[in-house]
């Protein structure tokens, strides 16, 4: 039932000069999952990633990535895990193709196989036409796509991306998210660190909310909404008239947590599940004339804002 974890940490801690960057982190990510690490800057996302790759020594705790401890077997881990750092950099004087060839050589891929993989990877990210242009002429979006091509060279089981869509224009960001979905479709596990919430929401199966080096919350967006906001769906109800009266009826529908009367014909219903059928029935039975009914999931932005606001309030009260 439970899939094998590809990434597992237990009590993972990193202390930088007396400052706790990551604080006893327990993280489990399963094969084929897209997991979003969410949190403000400085909440320990990048440090966690570097520890997963064996690029930074954990102060204490256990880590396992693709079945290996990155402290002891960093080469085995890094051979199967692709990493796209934030502000991914390439050698500007070398062409895209030469940069990828260097990666292939560092991975010990035989020449013929490397040629094949480079061509495939460049086609995949749509950079085949600029393959022999120096990377310094590339735009931010092109570099980011080259970053994906770069990790594809080693045909990784896991891809870790740090702020992949930061600084991209909306169109490139959307294309990039499509690319992530495609990679997930191939069965690769993806770990995405970001603070751009709606993008994380668009692609992630599960989300972990980071705060001061700790994983504060975890789950699907729906689960998080329930935990933080106490509700998971917004239902908009438009009736012909008498909204205040109908609100009384709707309030009694099971699952509904709150009803806001917007004006004489509009109700905003907050609920713990999708209550559209029940609301429709209740309105019609009460003699109301239903014009429109739609549902909206709360955005991660709301959850995030609400969560960090309440947390800040708590710490102030301490």
């Amino acid at each position, binding site marked *: 039932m439970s899939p094998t974890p590809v990434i597992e940490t237990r009590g993972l801690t990193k202390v930088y000069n007396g400052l706790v960057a990551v604080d006893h982190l327990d993280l489990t990510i399963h094969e084929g999952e897209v997991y979003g690490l969410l949190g403000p800057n400085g909440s320990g996302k990048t440090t966690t990633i570097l520890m997963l790759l064996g690029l930074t020594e954990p102060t204490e705790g256990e880590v396992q990535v693709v079945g290996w401890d990155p402290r002891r077997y960093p*080469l085995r881990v890094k051979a199967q895990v692709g*990493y796209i750092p934030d502000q991914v950099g390439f050698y500007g004087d070398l062409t895209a193709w030469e940069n990828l060839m260097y990666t292939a050589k*560092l991975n*010990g891929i035989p020449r013929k196989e490397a040629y094949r993989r480079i061509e495939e990877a460049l086609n995949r990210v749509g950079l085949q036409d600029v393959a022999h242009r120096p990377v310094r002429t590339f735009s931010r979006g092109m570099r980011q796509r080259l970053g994906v091509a770069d990790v594809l060279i*080693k045909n990784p089981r896991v891809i870790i991306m740090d702020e992949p869509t930061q600084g991209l224009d909306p169109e490139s960001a959307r294309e990039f998210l499509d690319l992530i979905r495609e990679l997930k479709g191939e069965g690769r596990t993806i770990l995405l660190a970001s603070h751009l919430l709606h993008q994380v929401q668009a692609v992630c199966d599960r989300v972990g909310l980071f705060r001061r080096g700790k994983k504060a919350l975890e789950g699907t967006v729906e689960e998080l909404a329930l935990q933080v906001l106490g509700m998971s769906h917004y239902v908009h109800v438009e009736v012909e008239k008498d909204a205040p009266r109908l609100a009384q009826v709707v309030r009694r529908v099971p699952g509904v947590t709150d009803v806001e009367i917007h004006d004489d014909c509009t109700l905003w219903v907050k609920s713990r599940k999708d209550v559209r059928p029940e609301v429709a029935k209740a309105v019609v039975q009460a003699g109301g004339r239903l014009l429109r009914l739609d549902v909206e999931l709360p955005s991660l932005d709301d959850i995030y804002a609400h969560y960090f606001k309440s947390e800040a309030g708590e710490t102030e009260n301490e």
Partner: protein
Amino acid sequence: MTMVRAMRTQREGSPWTGLWAVVAKEMADHLSSTRMFILEMLIALTAVGTAYNAASAIRSVAGLEPKFLFLKLFTVADEPFPSFVGFLGFLVPLIAIALAFDAVNNEFNQHTLARVLSQPIYRDALLFGKFLAGLFTQFLIYSAIWLLVFGLGVWQLGIPPTGEEVGRALWLLVATVFYGGVWMAVALLFSVRFRQPATAALASIAVWLFFSIFWPMISTSLATILAPIRIGTPEEILAQARWLLALRRLAPSQLYAEIVVALLRPEVRSLGLVLPFQLEGAILGQPLPLSQSVLLIWPHLTGLIAATILLFALAYILFQRQEVRA
């Protein structure tokens, strides 16, 4: 307890995985960069100019001692210009520094370090690969220059070099590469330490200037302090001279200069102080065989190599401790 810990954190896999990929890439960079092209042109022009002048000087003095003419191509100076080895004394550090001053900090600045280190290689391979690539590049440049000088010699003097001359030139080549190695290690160390390539370059040049200009002056005063001449006895004078030589030899340029003298002037029998009684029975002016000259420079050469290794080790430790995130 400590053993368990050591076992747990011991790394698996060769630290040299990917080394040759790094060496190949770095050498390609060096050989195609504008910076190196300028320096290569500079040193080639110097070589051709000085060797040509030396050849004409040698030809104009008929009946000059006919031995080791090819070595004279390196050492004969056309006043007021220095000889080719004189030029080498400062061109080599310049080339060496140019090869390494931005080796590591540029990876940081281009944001390539995290990406490269996330490939299945250790940091060791990256740093050592860069260093080896620098040494190989120097070897390649100097070999070309040596061939250029010898070719010019054959053309101008009309005789082929002897095996002994070739042997001495080859030893000089090795010594020159390691003289460069010291300065490359200095530059590499600074490239790890300083995030700005310009700072690293200036710091390297400052160290070089210190050792080539100020150190001779400082060592003279230090020798007078450490072994003052109070009455003027031969012992006192000798002690001071010994101190002076020992201090001066802390500078790589001094070691290199002595190596040059011993290799290119076969008649030189000692690089230290020679007292008259030590020369009893020696036939002055007779050249030493190559093996004896090599014996003479052996401590100097090992000194240069040791300094290179020591400085590289320092850079290595510093690099290992550095955090990947910029």
